[in-house]
């Protein structure tokens, strides 16, 4: 059972090796309940592997991971984690609303503690009038918004997001990070967000964890002490640029420049 002392995500000495490839060196990471932590690093450094280990989609070769004191497998079985994959992964035969309900419909015997109304959420992300549409009728950005709603609708205390905006153009991407901040802030879920984008990392996070090249290891952490709620004009603030520079410098240190 979970206890207060174990609350949050704890990654202790986790490493992952696939056959002859070390994907992730030993990594320690904690994410407190309600905290938004971004993992950033060069391509192939093991960011996604780390996320998949936390989500119980892979098992670590070494070390241990707990979510509120439980193993990732147990947390998965209790639907304590909402997952947002890189591709929207919408089911083409389900309408937008049915896709938004998907994670609630699956393993339905496990009642989520605080499910949100997917229709309300679709309204909040500007897709109310597309409830009955099919995924192929939506743009890439709209599809990814449905992917976010699907994860938020679960009402899980933790969300894992794997570069969800990677395939979008720069303007859609900015819109999506602003929308995600608006969705995250009132929910109070702990979030692990994987990205390549400095702007996303700084705008969304309470903390940014920088990984070095493969096999990924933590090369540094930057605390983002910008005020919340965060709004788009923050991105013109000198403090925002300073934090972006700090994260960039750590990234470059990680790759040996």
């Amino acid at each position: 059972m979970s206890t207060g002392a174990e609350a949050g995500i704890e990654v202790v000495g986790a490493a992952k090796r696939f056959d002859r490839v070390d994907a992730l060196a030993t990594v320690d990471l904690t994410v407190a309940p309600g905290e938004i932590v971004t993992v950033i690093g060069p391509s192939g450094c093991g960011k996604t592997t780390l996320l998949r280990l936390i989500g119980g989609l892979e098992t670590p070769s070494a070390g241990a991971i707990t979510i509120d004191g439980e193993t990732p497998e147990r947390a998965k079985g209790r639907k304590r984690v909402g997952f947002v994959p890189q591709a929207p992964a919408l089911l083409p035969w389900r309408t937008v609303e049915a896709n938004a309900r998907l994670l609630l419909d699956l393993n339905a015997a496990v009642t989520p503690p605080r499910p949100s109304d997917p229709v309300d959420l679709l309204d909040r992300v500007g897709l109310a009038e597309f409830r009955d549409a099919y995924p192929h009728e939506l743009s890439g950005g709209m599809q990814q918004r449905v992917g976010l709603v699907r994860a938020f609708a679960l009402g899980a205390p933790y969300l894992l997001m794997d570069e969800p905006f990677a395939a979008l153009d720069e303007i859609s991407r900015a819109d999506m990070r602003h929308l995600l901040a608006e969705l995250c802030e009132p929910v109070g879920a702990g979030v692990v967000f994987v990205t390549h984008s400095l702007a996303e990392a700084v705008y969304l996070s309470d903390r940014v964890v920088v990984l070095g090249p493969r096999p990924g290891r933590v090369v540094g952490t930057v605390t983002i002490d910008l005020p919340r709620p965060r709004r788009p004009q923050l991105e013109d603030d000198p403090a925002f640029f300073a934090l972006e520079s700090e994260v960039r410098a750590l990234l470059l240190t990680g790759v040996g420049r």
Partner: protein
Amino acid sequence: MNRSSRSGLWITVGAVALVLIWEALVRLLDVRPFVLLAPSRIVSSFADDPGFYLSDAWVTARHLVVGLAIALAIALVAGSALAAWRPFEHAAQPALVLVMVTPWVAYITSVRLVTGPGTPAAVFLVAFVTIPAFVYATVGGMRGADPAARELFSSVDASRREVLLRLRLPSALPAIFTAARFNVGLGLGAAYYAEGAAGARSGLGESGFRASALNEGPWLWTTILCAAMLGIVAQFALILTERRLLRWHQSQRRA
């Protein structure tokens, strides 16, 4: 004129041209009725006793539909197991390939001895020869389910049953429909042949075999064309079902 009326028009033009060329060739080359009958004579042969041909067509349609339904049911169960476990898939290959490549004309006597004559033999043969295409479609379609969606299902610990019914099976539907369209022709051939060769009491195949034995060209060719019409009706029914069930699939969308 919109796109669908235009394609409908061209299909009609093609059909009329086919019938006219067929009629002209038979008349110009003076082809014997037993070798190939002119469409006009097939129509008049049918018009002489439509009830006779329609009741035979109804029997053959039943053999076809029941055989295909049994094949599909077996293929869905077997295909789900094969898609879930690769060693199973490898182990099943010899049997599937053997069924596909062995000419059924050669073993119809054994089928008749095992199942008994008539309807059981016809239904068995239709099901037997159409299973492999359905199995391959089911396995391929299920394996092709979006990997990101599979991870999503796994992220909330969805059961195997949920993964099968809510992800793998819908993903396999387009391939299963393609196999069904191929299997309609194959199954119709099997039904027609088994009715004749395995001693059915009625059916287009039985009728055609008797016509052959009696050297009755018009009768034979009318059963052949009735079987072809049955196939066209079955294809059309499949297309309509596909349009309804696979509205979401790219094959059903207008460019």
